[in-house]
């Protein structure tokens, strides 16, 4: 996707390291992540549980738990609309400074719409609270804006449903409201933390399509956090694969799915349930991720990697450039490494994915 090069960088992470103090021991959850997020793109961050997906996005939404700190690196938010167009988010200490970023510049949609809304306040009240806070407008005006955005996210008869309580909405409707609240202040970046995991399969596509549609209309950047590669294939333009707190491979969605270079990405793709053959065991990655309490030497994935080489246990691989947009952190890309082909089952992934993936969006809309 060459147009990324033309896009402006919106958020730039440089060598970010996050440490958590867990009962006196330090856990390094993010180990030197550098990442540029471009204006208007859809980036998916994938990885298994504990790989640091959520923690990474929390560094730029300021939502790290109180025992976590950004111990190194910088996170710069570029926004021409701001008076000072560059803000280093790692310098924000006061809660009041973060309140200017959260909601207004960077908003987050969480996994479970059932619990993301306050059960005893009306939908309208909850929307207006955020709108009034960020846009400094009166109650009537806030209501008009709220109804407008409710209509945008596909709520029928929003005037009537404005005074309804969350329990009167279905799960899909609630996630629409959560998205509406998140977008009510026109943020530049929308972080979707597993936005469809808790939803019915039939609703999932609707919600993803809704986010895509709104992104086109309102022009914001979406960062998806997910372990569902089906979602990634559906919505993302770029994919970053995270393992043990590091980005091991990053590239456009086509590059990751059709030309993956990192053995971990291979393993991840191999474990797609769509690729399993009837009658055979489904593929799973052997072993567990390394403990992040200890210092990791070499390639963090080496112990689970059947293509591991001697060097993997000694030195950490650098990011090898595959193309302008595609990088992978594996010694296999070193010119001296032996030639290794990706596993058989993830070749021709495109055809297999199309065969296994049912698009519900056309049926139910």
């Amino acid at each position, binding site marked *: 996707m060459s147009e990324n090069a033309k896009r402006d960088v919106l958020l730039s992470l440089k060598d970010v390291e996050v440490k958590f103090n867990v009962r006196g021991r330090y856990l390094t959850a993010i180990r030197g992540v550098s990442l540029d997020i471009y204006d208007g793109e859809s980036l998916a961050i994938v990885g298994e549980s504990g790989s640091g997906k959520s923690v990474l996005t929390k560094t730029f939404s300021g939502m790290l738990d109180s025992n976590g700190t950004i111990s190194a690196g910088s996170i710069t938010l570029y926004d021409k609309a701001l008076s000072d167009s560059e803000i280093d988010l790692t310098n924000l200490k006061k809660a009041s400074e973060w309140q200017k970023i959260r909601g207004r510049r960077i908003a987050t949609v969480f996994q479970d719409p059932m*619990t993301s809304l306050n059960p*005893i306040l009306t939908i309208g009240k909850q929307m207006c*609270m955020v709108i009034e806070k960020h846009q400094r407008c009166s109650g009537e005006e806030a209501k008009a804006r709220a109804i407008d955005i409710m209509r945008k996210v596909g709520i029928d008869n929003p005037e009537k449903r404005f005074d309804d*309580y969350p329990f009167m909405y279905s799960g899909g409707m609630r996630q629409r409201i959560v998205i509406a609240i998140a977008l009510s*202040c026109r943020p530049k970046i929308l972080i979707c933390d597993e936005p469809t995991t808790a939803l019915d399969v039939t609703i999932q596509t609707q919600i993803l399509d809704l986010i895509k549609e709104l992104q086109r209309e309102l022009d914001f950047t979406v960062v998806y956090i997910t372990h569902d590669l089906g979602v990634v294939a559906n919505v993302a333009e770029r994919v970053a694969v995270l393992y043990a707190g590091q980005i091991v491979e990053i590239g456009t969605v086509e590059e990751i799915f059709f030309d993956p270079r990192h053995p971990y990405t291979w393993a991840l793709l191999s474990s797609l349930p769509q690729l399993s053959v009837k009658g055979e065991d489904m593929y799973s990655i052997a072993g567990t991720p390394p403990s992040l309490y200890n210092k990791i030497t070499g390639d963090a994935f080496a112990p689970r990697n059947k293509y591991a080489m001697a060097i993997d246990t000694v030195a950490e691989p650098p990011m090898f450039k595959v193309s302008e947009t595609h990088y992978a952190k594996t010694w296999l890309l070193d010119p001296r490494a032996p030639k290794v082909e990706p596993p058989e089952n993830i070749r021709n992934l495109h055809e297999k994915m199309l065969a296994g993936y049912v698009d519900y969006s056309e049926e139910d809309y």
Partner: protein
Amino acid sequence: MAKYLLKRILFSLFALIVVTGIVMVLVYTYTNRNDLLKSDDNWKKRSGNEQKLYEYTVFQRYGYLEFVDYTTFLKTKYLETEGESYTQNEDYKKAKNAISDSATFQDYPDVAEFIDKYYGEGYDFVYMPVLKYASGKEKAGGGAILLAVNEKSVWNRLWDYITGFITFESKYDVEDENLTDRYIRWEDDPYSKLPALVGSGTKHKYLIYFDSRFPFIHQNLIKINLGISSVTYKNQEITDVINTPTGDMKVVTVQYPTQLGTDQYTETSIDFHSVTYNNAGVSDSDRAIFTDNYTVYSYQKKGLTMLENSFIIGFIATVIAYLMGLPFGIFMSRHKDGLADKTGNFYIIFMMSVPSLAYIFLFATIGTTLFGFPYKFATSTTKIGGYILPVICLALPGLGNVMRWIRRYMIDQMNADYVKFAKAEGLSEQEIFSGHIFPNAMVYLMQGLPGSILGCLTGAIITERVFAVPGVGGLLTTAIDSKDNGIIIACTVFYTFLTILSIILGDLLLSRYDPRVSLTDGKGGGR
């Protein structure tokens, strides 16, 4: 919702009746009534048939049975004979002696009449023949006795209690042929100078009236009969016991009804609003005061009633506990594990773990020595002085309790997803606490709120006893001690009623507050 509420109320009434029935069974069938006699000197002094008769008197007083003595029956019968006292009446003497002969007494006309009358009403008969020594001399207390005894079954007792629970006054209540002018109408009340609903032929004269006592409007139209105290408050209605001021007589300068229209005034304690109809014949001294037959009165007293004393102390304590406990608990939750939270937790654990008697005496000592608050309620020279220590002693544990629960629910809610989402949308901590967390934490406290206020009407046993507050707190324990069956049942009914009412009000309040709760059957929001 109305349908649901009606159903709840019917269920509640049923529960109330069941509880009353259970207590009646416990009190009247599972306690040994002969224990009542063991410590009774009057019983020990008596012997023979007289002692037996006394036993029946005691059992009747405690409500176990009802009986009519043949002699009493004769007295009422021969009293009607005009001109002479029944003691001089020869027929009376003859009838009285008729039962001495155990062989023939049943044939005597008066005895037959007595038996006929009470047999029809379901009474059993107890005959005790004359007790004589071998010499033929009558033993002490050995005179013959004939009784009609009605041992009430629990079912009858319960039925009587329920059917007599609420009574309404009507103008046909008074049985007096000479009273022809019967009415209930609004008249000008000469004592309050305001209108009053006045009855003639009703038991009370003033049915609805105003006076200077809280709550300023009073009524005698509807009466709740909780029961009658048999021991502690001799034969008083329990509703009167808890609703009569506990202070000294109050002397006021008023005009007697006979003085109305003149310029004469009299100093008296008579409460003219309390008058009831006198069926027994108005005495000359009463005639000098009253112009009609409503001459049975009670006195005005100073001070507050037992119920008011308990409620005022409890209510102020509850209000203080909530007004201080909520902000303290919220502060603790916002600064969890900080110094304030630790201090607060220490206080909560202290109040929970130290027995109430211990800290009440502690606070009493601190209050009296350091601040000079009056110790005993009655010794207070100012109006509010006596309330200070009891209120403090009730408010402090209540405060700990409110702090404990609001802190706990606030912390619960702080980890909720919607709080995380609100934070991610840029709301400030203050906005999240007051707009999201606190309202949700209050959901759990809301239901108990009516209970903690209505609960004040049951009084505080230990606090009231330590500070000698004339309140309702000790009513039930004293009644159990003294086997005052009427009060035991009355208290049970009253407390059960308060509990049921608290729960219903709590549910109603919760359904108003929490949109997820709806008071309906079946569909339409979970319960």
